[in-house]
C-alpha cells in the first residue's frame, strides 16, 4: 500500500502591534517585569467586563482578507469554558465556526522548493491569550502580562504532505503578519505557537472524502518552526512504524504533546476524554455589525506584501528571482532595500550589497538586524563612491565592514583612512614617470618584448599611491608612458 501523509495546522500568533490587549485596557507589550501590564479584568476580579479592542479587530480582518477568507457580517465572540490556573476567568473569550469567526474558508498560495502551493484555510479567529506560568520545584508562578493579549488562531485543512511543506507555509504566514504590521511573530517571545494534526491515508483512496484520511493525531504546543518540523517527522515515523508492523489499530485518535527534550511526542488524552468546552456566545459583547465601508477601508490599507514586492523587484528593478527571494524573506531587509531605492541608489548594486555583503557579515559578526549601524543612506553613499570611482570596490568592502563595526559614515571612514582613489590622470602620469625613472631596467626588458613588465610597473604605481590610484587608469597610463620612452 502506498501512503499519503495528511498534515493540518493550527497556528496561534499573538497580535503584538496593538497598544492594548484585546478585551482589556492593559498595555499589550512584552514586559520583562511580571504582572506589569495588568488591569482588573486580566485577573478576573468580580464585576469586570470585556471591551473589544477595535484595532485588534481591524488587524484580524486584514489578516482574514490577506488569507482569502470571507469576513462575517456580524462580529460575535464566544466563551470557551474550562478551569486552569492560567485562565483567571475560567473561560477564554474566543470565536468558533458558528456564528462565523473573523475569517472563514480561504485559500493561501505559498512557495515551497520554488513551486507554488495552495493551502486551504478552514477559519481564522480572534481570541485572548492565557497568562503564562513558570514552574519551580517549590511551586508555580503565574504572570498575567500575557493574559488577554490578542491572539489570532488560523486553522488549515490537512493540505500539507510533508513537514517541510508545513513549515514553508508557516514561514509564509509569519512573513505576512510581519509585512501587514500585525505581529512581530517572534517565536523567542512565545508569540507563535502551533498545534499539528497528522494522519496517514491509503494513497489509492479518494482524498476528498475525510473518512479516508486515516486516524488523526493532534500534537499540541509546538512552539517553534523547527519543533514543528521535528514533531511532524517524528509522528509520521511513529505512525508508519505502527502501520508497517500491522498495528494499525494502535493508532488512536488522541492528543499528544511534543517533548522538546526527548524529541518525541507523548500521549496527553484520548478522544473519549476530550474536554467539553461548553461554548456559548459572550453576552457582555453585543453583536457588532461590520460595515462594508469599514472593510473597504481596511482592504485599501493593506500594506504591500512580500509577493507583490518580489514582483516589483524582478520586473522593475531588474534583479534576479534568487536575490529578490532573499530580500523579501525578511521584512526589515526588504524595507531597508526599498529605502535605498527611494534614495536613488542603483537597484542592482544595492541588491548585491545586501544579499552578499550585508547578510553575510551579519552572520559573521553575529549581529541582529535591529543592531545594525548601517543606514540606507550610508549604503547609497558607499555605492556612489564606487560609481564615481572615488574609491575602488576593494576599498568599498573595507569601508562597509568599518561601518558595521564603528557606525561611522562612509565619508568619515574614507577620509580617516585617506582612502580616496586617485583618478586625476595628470597626477598618475607624473607618478608613472617617476616609477619609470626609478626602474630603467624594466624599460629595457619592455623594449626586448617582455610586455608583461607593465603589470609590475602598474603595481609600483599602486604601491606609491598606497593603493589609491584607480588601477585601470594606472595600467593604461603606464602602457602609454612606457611607449614614449
Amino acid at each position, binding site marked *: 500500500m502506498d501512503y499519503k501523509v495528511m498534515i493540518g495546522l493550527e497556528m496561534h500568533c499573538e497580535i503584538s502591534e496593538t497598544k492594548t490587549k484585546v478585551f482589556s485596557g492593559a498595555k499589550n507589550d512584552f514586559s520583562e517585569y511580571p504582572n506589569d501590564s495588568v488591569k482588573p479584568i486580566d485577573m478576573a476580579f*468580580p464585576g469586570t467586563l470585556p*471591551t473589544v479592542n477595535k484595532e485588534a479587530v481591524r488587524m484580524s480582518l486584514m489578516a482574514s482578507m490577506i488569507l482569502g477568507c470571507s469576513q462575517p457580517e456580524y462580529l460575535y465572540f464566544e466563551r470557551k469554558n474550562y478551569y486552569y490556573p492560567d485562565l483567571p476567568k475560567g473561560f477564554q473569550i474566543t470565536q468558533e465556526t458558528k456564528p462565523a469567526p473573523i475569517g472563514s474558508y480561504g485559500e493561501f498560495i505559498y512557495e515551497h522548493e520554488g513551486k507554488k502551493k495552495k493551502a486551504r484555510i478552514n477559519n481564522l479567529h480572534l481570541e485572548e491569550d492565557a497568562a503564562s506560568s513558570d514552574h519551580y520545584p517549590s511551586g508555580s508562578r503565574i504572570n498575567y502580562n500575557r493574559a488577554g493579549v490578542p491572539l489570532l488562531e488560523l486553522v488549515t485543512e490537512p493540505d500539507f504532505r510533508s513537514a517541510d511543506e508545513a513549515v514553508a507555509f508557516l514561514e509564509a504566514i509569519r512573513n505576512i503578519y510581519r509585512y501587514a504590521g500585525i505581529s512581530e511573530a517572534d517565536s523567542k517571545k512565545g508569540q507563535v505557537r502551533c498545534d499539528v494534526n497528522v494522519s496517514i491515508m491509503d494513497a489509492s483512496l479518494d482524498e476528498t472524502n475525510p473518512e479516508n484520511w486515516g486516524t488523526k493525531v493532534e500534537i499540541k504546543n509546538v512552539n517553534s518552526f523547527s519543533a514543528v518540523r521535528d514533531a511532524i517527522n517524528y509522528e509520521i515515523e511513529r505512525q508508519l512504524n505502527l502501520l508497517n508492523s500491522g498495528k494499525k489499530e494502535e493508532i488512536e485518535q488522541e492528543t499528544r504533546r511534543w517533548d522538546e527534550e526527548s524529541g518525541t511526542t507523548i500521549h496527553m488524552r484520548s478522544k473519549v476524554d476530550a474536554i467539553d468546552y461548553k461554548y*456559548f456566545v459572550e453576552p457582555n459583547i453585543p453583536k457588532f455589525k461590520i460595515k462594508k465601508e469599514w472593510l473597504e477601508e481596511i482592504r485599501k490599507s493593506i500594506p504591500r506584501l512580500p509577493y507583490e514586492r518580489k514582483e516589483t523587484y524582478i520586473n522593475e528593478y531588474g534583479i534576479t528571482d534568487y536575490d529578490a527571494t532573499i530580500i523579501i524573506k525578511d521584512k526589515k531587509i526588504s524595507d531597508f532595500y526599498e529605502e535605498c531605492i527611494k534614495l536613488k541608489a542603483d537597484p542592482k548594486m544595492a541588491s548585491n550589497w545586501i544579499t552578499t555583503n550585508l547578510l553575510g557579515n551579519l552572520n559573521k559578526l553575529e549581529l541582529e538586524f535591529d543592531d545594525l549601524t548601517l543606514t540606507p543612506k550610508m549604503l547609497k553613499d558607499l555605492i556612489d563612491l564606487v560609481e564615481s570611482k572615488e574609491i575602488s570596490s576593494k576599498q568599498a568592502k573595507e569601508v562597509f565592514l568599518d561601518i558595521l563595526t564603528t557606525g561611522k559614515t562612509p565619508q568619515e571612514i574614507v577620509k580617516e583612512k585617506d582612502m580616496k582613489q586617485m583618478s586625476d590622470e595628470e597626477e598618475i602620469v607624473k607618478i608613472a614617470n617617476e616609477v619609470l625613472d626609478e626602474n630603467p631596467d624594466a624599460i629595457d626588458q619592455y623594449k626586448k618584448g617582455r610586455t608583461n613588465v607593465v603589470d609590475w610597473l602598474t603595481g609600483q604605481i599602486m604601491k606609491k599611491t598606497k593603493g589609491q590610484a584607480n588601477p585601470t587608469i594606472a595600467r593604461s597610463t603606464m602602457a602609454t608612458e612606457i611607449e614614449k620612452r
Partner: protein
Amino acid sequence: MTYMDKSIEEIHEALIKGKVTSKELIKESLEKTKEIEKKCNAFVTILDDAKPVEVTDELLSGIPYGIKDNYSTEGILSTGSSNTLKDYIPFFTATAIENLTKKGAIPVNKTALDEFGMGGTGTTCHTGTITNPWDHTRMCAGSSAGSAAAVAAGVYPYATGSDTGDSIRKPAAYCGIVGYKPTYGMISRYGLFPFASSLDHLGALTRSVKDAAIVVDGMKGIDKNDMTSWDSSNIHLYDSIDGNIKGKKLCYIKEICDINNYPNADNELKEHLANFMDTIEKCKKLGFEVKEESIDQTLLNALPSVYVVISCAEATSNMSNLTGFIFGPRAEGESWDQSLKNYRTKGFSPLIKRRFVIGSYVLQAENKDRYFHNAQRVRRLLVDEWNKLYKKYDAIILPVGSGPAKKLEGSKDILDQNTAILEEHLQIGNFGGFPSITIPNGFIDNLPVGINITGKCYDDINVLNIAYAIESSMNYKGQVVKEVK
C-alpha cells in the same frame, strides 16, 4: 423629627433650608441601621465612618443610602453575601456607585442578598436569613432582600438593587415599596458581581416613583467599561415625570390575572387578584384605556424553564472566576484542582451548586441544542409577544407574585406549579431588557402587595409616568413599615 422615612425631595429641601445637616442624617440612618440589623439581619457591613458631604443642588447630595453587597466598592468589604468572598475588599468601585458619589450620595451600609443574587427568598445569605420588617416570620423575597427591608423600614430613602429575574421588583412588592429596573444597559453593569450577564440589571428600591427616577438618574450613564451600556444623557427621568397619562393604553394578560386559571387558589391569592382588578378599575377611572389580552398558555408555561436554563448556564460560566487563588479565602489542597474543588465545595450554598449543575448540564455538547439553544429561541418568542403588545399598548400591568410575603417557615426555593406563572412572569422584563417598575397597591392580611408596570425598551419615561399616575391615585406612596408582630 425623623428624616430617613421621608422622600428624597423632602429631605433635600430640609437640607437646603438648614433644618437638618448631612451629618445628622447619617447619624439617624446609622442608628436605624443598627435597629433593623437586629430585627431583620439585613446588612453585611455597616459603614460607621460614613462622612457627610457638602449639600448642593443635586437632590441626592448629603443623603444616606444603602448598597447591595454584590456591588464592588473600593476599600469596602464586598461579599455578594457568599462565603467564597467573605473577606474580599475590592480595589475598584462599580460605575453606578461612582456616579452616585459624584452626586454627593453617602453610603451607610452594604445590604445582604441571596448569595450572588441567585435566590428569591433572602434566606441564602452567608450572614443568615433576612426577615420581612412588616412581619418577621415572613421573607422579603429576593435577592435584594436587605435593600428592600431597609428601605421599607425607613433606614434611608433608597438602596441600590440588582435584578436578574425579579430581584428588585419582587422584594419591593413584599416589602410595600417601589422597585425599578430601567432598560438594559441604561445603568452600567461594571462592578456588579455577575449572575447572568444577559439578564442582569441594576436598579433602585425606593418608597416612591419619583425617588426611583431620581436615583436611577444618578446611577445611569454610558460607560466605556460596559459595552452593553448606552448613552442616555438626553433622558432625564425625574424631570420628565408630569403625571400626564392622557390617551395612554394599558393591558393585562388573562392567562396570568384571571382567578379562574387557579382552581386551587387560597384566600390570599383570591384577594390579591381581586385587589389587582380593583387597581385596574382605578386605572380606568384615571383615564387609562385598559384591555385584557391573551397569550399562548404553552408559551407562558415555558417561561420558568427558559429562565432556569439561561440564567444557570450564564451563572456557571460567570462564577468560574471564583477559585480562591486570586481573591477569596484560598482552600487547602494537594494540587491546584483539589484546592479549587475544596474552595468551591465549601464556599457555595447548596442552592447555588444545584444551579451550577443545571448550568453545566444544559451547556454540554449533547444537551446544548435541546436545552440552551431552545431556551434562547423561546426567550426570543416571548420577547416578540411582549413587543407585539407594545405596538398596541404603552405598558403591561400585572400583579406581582401570588399574594403577600410568604412565610419563612417551610419556605423552599421551589415553585408551586399552579401559580408558577404568577410568581415568574417578571422574568420577561429581563428577557427583553424592558423597563419595569413595581409599586405597592394595597394590603392583604395587613401585609403589602404590589403591581408591576413594564414597557418597551428605552421607554422608561412612559413607564415611570404611568406608575406615578397610578401611585398618586392610591395611599401607599412613601409608606414605611408598620410592624404587624
